[in-house]
């Protein structure tokens, strides 16, 4: 029983991080149709930058976090300005490949700058946990993940559904050229999108490496976040918020109960198996929009 409870807690909090990163991914996709496979690399880059500012340069933690997020924003703006322009209208493969290649490039740069050893991140949240009787305990950091994600998601939902920029983002996502025609500043929409997305990725990276340590392999969380986005449906915010924690919980349950049977590794595999099943059964995700394709 305790095992189940601890799986739930850990899965819930990790899943929240997946949702956070997935939001950024989906944002970029919804507005510009670009699939940012480099989301994971940006995530871990944010963590490395935070580490640089706080440990290597000795700056106070809030400042280091702020600077890492600013760096994320600048990176997002830079990517939009110099790379995205050329990607609009290109076939899907070119877009996927560009972001993939870019992530490999980032990987090389990170190896160069910070080496390939696991670095432990400066602790963000106090030690200790809350006990719910004998049933479950939740770490302060896990609690923080959940709360921070919740707040950010609510903020974002309000922004997306109730503001003009949100509507502009939705329109641009549907038909970029028609949006330009209607008088929407498409470049501005893209810039906002990428900036938000990179900030959420960096934030997610800073949070998650607090628990997992800083190493390039953590970038694989990017793929898991993408899986969350796909299972939830690439156009649906609700989908991501719901599916993230669910997938997180499933992942840890699978690790706890199935690992002994298959010899380990289920934690990384479970999201992908679920993804495949969902893609076959409901191709556009549980909450996704169907492609309206008329010939």
């Amino acid at each position, binding site marked *: 029983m305790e095992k189940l409870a601890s799986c739930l807690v850990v899965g819930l909090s990790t899943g929240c991080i997946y949702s956070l990163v997935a939001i950024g991914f989906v944002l970029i996709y919804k507005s510009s149709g670009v699939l940012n496979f480099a989301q994971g690399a940006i995530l871990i880059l944010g963590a490395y930058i935070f580490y640089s500012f706080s440990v290597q340069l000795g700056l106070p933690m809030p400042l280091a976090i702020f600077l890492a997020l600013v760096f994320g924003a600048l990176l997002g703006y830079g990517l939009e300005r110099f790379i995205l322009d*050329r990607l609009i209208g290109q076939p899907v493969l070119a877009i*996927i490949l560009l972001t993939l290649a870019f992530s490999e490039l980032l990987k090389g740069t990170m190896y160069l700058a910070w080496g390939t050893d696991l670095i432990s991140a400066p602790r963000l949240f106090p030690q200790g946990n809350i006990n719910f009787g004998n049933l479950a305990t939740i770490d302060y950091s896990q609690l923080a993940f959940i709360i921070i994600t919740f707040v950010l998601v609510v903020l974002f939902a309000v922004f997306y559904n109730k503001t003009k920029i949100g509507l502009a983002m939705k329109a641009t996502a549907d038909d970029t050229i028609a949006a330009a025609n209607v008088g929407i500043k498409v470049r501005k929409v893209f810039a906002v999108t990428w900036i938000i997305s990179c900030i959420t990725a960096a934030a997610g990276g800073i949070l998650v490496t607090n628990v997992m340590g800083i190493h390039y392999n953590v970038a694989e969380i990017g793929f898991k976040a993408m899986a969350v986005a796909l299972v939830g449906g690439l156009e649906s915010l609700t989908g991501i918020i719901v599916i993230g924690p669910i997938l997180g919980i499933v992942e840890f349950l699978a690790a706890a109960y199935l690992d002994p049977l298959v010899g380990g590794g289920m934690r990384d595999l479970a999201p992908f198996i679920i993804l495949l099943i969902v*893609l076959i059964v409901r*191709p556009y995700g549980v909450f996704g929009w169907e492609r309206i394709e008329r*010939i």
Partner: protein
Amino acid sequence: MWRPSGLFHINYRQEIAFIQTPAQWVWLVIGLILAYTLPLFMPMILWDYLIKSWVTIAAVLGLSILTGICGQISLGHTAFMAVGAFVGAILLDHGVPLIPALIAAGLAGGLVGLIFGLPALRIKGFYLAFATLAAFYIIEFALIHYFGGEVGHAVPPTNMFGFNFDSDLRIYYLVVSVTLLLTYCSKNITRSKWGRAFVAIRDHDIAANTLGVNIYFYKLMAFFIGCFYAGVSGLLLSIYMGWASVDHYPLSNCIWYLGMLIVGGMHNISGAYLGVFFILGIEQIGIAMAPVFAEWFPAKAGSMIGTVPILFVGLTLVLFILFEPRGLVHRWEIIKTSFRLFPFSH
């Protein structure tokens, strides 16, 4: 396809022939001779590059059929190579002769590819790419846990009709022969009814469906063929390395292979050749430059050899996608055309 004026096609056979002019016969013969004698001109340290290139060409040819011509994006290609390598290694270990082992490796890769290509019947584009990524992880997991993957299998020395492939040079001949054969098959596929069906599916699969092309069958066949090539290529690589292990087939290679397709030119076979030689060449340059970088950053000298090639290749890929997304083949066509039309520009 450009032909000099005065050369007309008067029947279908002529139109689809590979060699259209006598000059092309000459180039073909020269090319074949060059392919087989290349290692004799090159210093021995480059033989690794040559063998790896030909093996990669075999794999990328498969990807070219699957992704370039049929438009089904596959991010899991190296997993199917690994499948072929393992199956082949196990068979060779049990004394199966080389050619059946190669064919079996291909079939294994193709069948697994077919199974994991089933999602293609319902999804496309990015969703499919991700499904193939999932396939990669699942296959890798299965190989590691059920087939002894991380440690891998030793591949016994192979021979064909008594001709022992025991030196690098001989392995080179094996690899080149197999790849040339596969190239011939690819060209045949693309000029046949299947090739046309693939292109139709790539361009607009729903419209192809309404015109009577059985897109379900052809999509699965594209996966089968593409992964067949991957399986054969995987076994060839393992024969060369002497060892079949999951480490030889990492995820980043999938990215590089797709990159080679784009750099070379996605829509035709020569693109695979150009892309592979070019990208692997850049990687070699990166390896050669690693010591230079190590001097500039002495603190990180140890990791240079692993990271500099990645940086070079990644940068090349990014630049190509930004500035020449149609690849080297396109650029070559433009160069040829500008020479032909000189002094006019178009």
